[in-house]
């Protein structure tokens, strides 16, 4: 395909300049495709700017999610190795801490299984834990160390990947919301997606990739297909800058249970980590409250109690800011990656929940391979958009067919 000759056309049009869109654009440009990236705001204006920058192996479910995580980790370490400094890549390692006998027992069971799947995890007894994290609570009984867990500054990842993509020939246009899709009119659902409509005019493209995170469902609905991406709110608190006190990403053992949970109520498990700037991030709550932006004192209180239980010294430290974001999640807790057979020409890369930063690199590379007509390094079938069923003809009929 070649849509790159017209002034507005391109082989690939990426909607959304968060980390996932940025990585997709970057790798598509590397494949020699002509790429246009549109964002309704600036790069990293959505969930990418309201998270902790995690690249985690420790919290992944066995199966396709873990497989994609390991693939992505490889992309971060190899394909993107030369750019690590641009986004403050840190191989800091994660530590899961158990403070009760029962959680220690479950942690040990999880570790045994993960080891069987090749995860680099090491058991820490109380002394080893204290050596790794000298300020950890006296109550902590033991833990597990995940050396592969890393961290990046996610806004810098998105902004630099967009910049690198443009240096490789891609075009980025900020402040351009997509208001509809161009269709070729053939077929029962309006036909092939041939581009997007925006207030700045139409942008034709051979392939349109929906990388709009929590808004992915809305975008998909404009094309008459259902992609059930829902928001799950999370609060993160930031402390005043301190000398290094917390050396790894430190979680409580309950963290793993909450990640996979579909409970709507307020949950939180402590995730405490230092950053290169000296601040300590305290995360994070999980709530299904839609896009509610009301600050919740209940959430702040819960975060503070959990964090001080893990690191008692935090009680005397001041918080200087907090923020919240909306993790885009699908009901089966797997992202949506690949071509949407229900709306030919439309692709999705969204719904990575709390793992979007970590999974973005792998997602972008695999999708770029598929967009270039190659066989992706990893089978994308488990992430196929069509798993959510047929298009709703009612929604589709509202869309304007264009020739």
């Amino acid at each position, binding site marked *: 395909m070649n849509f790159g000759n017209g002034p507005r056309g391109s082989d690939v049009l990426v909607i959304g300049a968060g980390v996932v869109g940025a990585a997709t654009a970057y790798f598509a440009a590397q494949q020699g495709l002509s790429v246009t990236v549109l964002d309704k705001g*600036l*790069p990293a204006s959505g969930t990418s700017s309201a998270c902790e920058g995690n690249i985690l192996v420790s919290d992944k479910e066995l199966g396709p999610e873990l497989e994609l995580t390991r693939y992505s980790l490889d992309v971060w370490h190899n394909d993107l190795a030369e750019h690590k400094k641009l986004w403050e890549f840190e191989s800091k390692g994660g530590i899961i801490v158990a403070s009760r006998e029962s959680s220690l027992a479950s942690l040990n069971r999880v570790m045994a299984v993960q080891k069987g799947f090749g995860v680099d995890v090491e058991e820490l007894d109380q002394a080893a834990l204290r050596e790794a994290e000298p300020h950890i609570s006296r109550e902590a009984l033991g833990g597990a160390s995940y050396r592969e867990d890393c961290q990046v500054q996610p806004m810098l990842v998105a*902004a630099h990947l967009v910049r690198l993509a443009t240096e490789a020939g891609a075009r980025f246009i*900020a402040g351009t919301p997509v208001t509809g899709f161009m269709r070729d009119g053939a077929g029962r659902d309006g036909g092939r997606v041939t581009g997007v409509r925006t207030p700045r005019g139409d942008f034709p493209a051979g392939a349109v990739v929906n990388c709009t995170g929590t808004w992915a469902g809305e975008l998909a609905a404009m094309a008459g297909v259902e992609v059930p991406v829902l928001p799950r709110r999370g609060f993160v608190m930031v402390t005043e800058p301190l000398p290094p006190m917390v050396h790894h990403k430190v979680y409580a053992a309950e963290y793993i249970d909450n990640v996979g949970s579909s409970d709507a109520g307020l949950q939180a498990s402590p995730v405490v980590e230092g950053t290169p700037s000296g601040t300590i991030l305290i995360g994070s709550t999980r709530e299904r409250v839609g896009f509610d932006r009301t*600050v919740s004192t209940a959430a*702040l*209180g819960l975060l503070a109690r959990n964090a001080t239980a893990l690191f008692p010294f935090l009680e005397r430290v*001041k918080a*200087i800011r907090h923020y919240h974001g909306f993790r885009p999640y699908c009901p089966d807790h797997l992202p949506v990656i690949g071509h949407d057979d229900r709306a030919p020409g439309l692709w999705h890369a969204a719904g990575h929940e709390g793992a979007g930063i970590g999974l973005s690199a792998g997602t972008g590379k695999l999708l770029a391979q598929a967009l270039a007509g190659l066989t992706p390094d990893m089978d994308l079938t488990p992430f196929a958009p069509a798993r959510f069923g047929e298009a709703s003809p009612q929604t589709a009929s509202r869309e304007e067919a264009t020739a």
Partner: protein
Amino acid sequence: MSVTVDVAVVGAGPAGLAAAVAAAEAGARVAVVDAGNQPGGQFWRHAPETVRPEPDGHGHHGWSTYLDLRARFDAAQRAGRITYLPGLQVWMAEPGFTLHTTAAVAPAGAVPVAVTADRLVLCPGGYDRQLPVPGWDLPGVMAAGGIQAFIKANGALPGKRFIIAGTGPFLLPVAAGIAEAGGEVLAVLESSSPSAWLPHLRAASGVPGKALEGAEYAAVFARHRIPYRTRSIVTEVLGSGRAEGVRTARVDADGRARPGTGRVYADVDVVGFGWGFTPQLELPVSLGVDTRLDADGSLVGVVDERQQSSVPGVYLAGEVTGVGGAALAVLEGLAAGAAAARPDSGVPVKQPAAIVRHRRFAQAMHQAHPVPAAWQDWLTPDTTVCRCEEVTAGDITEAREELGARDVRSLKSFTRAGMGWCQGRVCGFAAACLGAGPGEAPDAGSLAASAKRPLAAPVGIGELAALD
């Protein structure tokens, strides 16, 4: 501890004091939360009353207004109508309304109180607006208002030889206060020109008190032989380890330094900068109050003729509605307090003519003393812009040009400007200008992003842990 009242007032400066008095005298139960230890705010800051029980008001303007408000405030407190909560900062205002407080930074020790109220009058005031210049991060460089506060609180000077620079009439009382306290002011450098006043004389003449103040300062300047240099700026603060001197220049109408006009002042102890004021908007913004750009380029809250904001029950008075000085703040506070005490009186209110006059005067003042359009030219790539996070002008230019950071929000993300201890209170305006680009003024959206601080003050994690 918690308190429930009809009207909660935040701030006890000119606006807050007036609002509290007016609301209490109209029959409301009032709570006043203030970071200071005694009423007066920055404008009427005075030595601790525990040390000097009867301050004489030396060096203060409108001291008789203060004494009158203070007497009424004390009487209402004795009558149980005002609950005064000093030494506390509000870190969060919840809709409906609940104010969560924490002990102010200095002196700590006040016990946090949660204040529940049907109506709020927010009078948080403002602070000196700063523009970076090479060397401004050296010790010995202060905000002009910081020098004044130092003198008012301590009755002593932070140094011996001073340079005061920036723009606006506020530079005059700062320099006069230094001279009266025995300091030597080598020069006051005003970037604007006196002729800038001419088109605005009519507005100025509506507020005769201001002319009187001006005459007083002129007398002080003459008595102490303080050189007042217009169309002049500090282009660099000189010194190794601390401020020791300044390099100055004459500027054109846009604030561009004119070649060959450079001059050095040596043996300087303190350099004070004041580029107008930034209203403290985090509480109004967190409650969703509509904002606008004022004539001085600051983001301010929008109010109606009763001082009510776009959020029902939230009233604003003082610098948060537009920088206009203490006399206007008192008038607004009186109006806001009375309206908040009787929100349903139903009588259409005509805005007091005095408020209209003072606002007109303030607008004229802002137009005569703009932030120079070309101020970004003064910077070198290694000039620090965000002191907390040590972010330079070069870092910001790079983020703007290579990563497309056009607003404060993305600048924060990409450079950490405004992410440190002060949360952009000092560098926010400058960063917003730099994001907009050379010669550009920031738009309201970018300034709103800078004013948005979900924690309005730092708060202990131990205190947060006690929340349910």
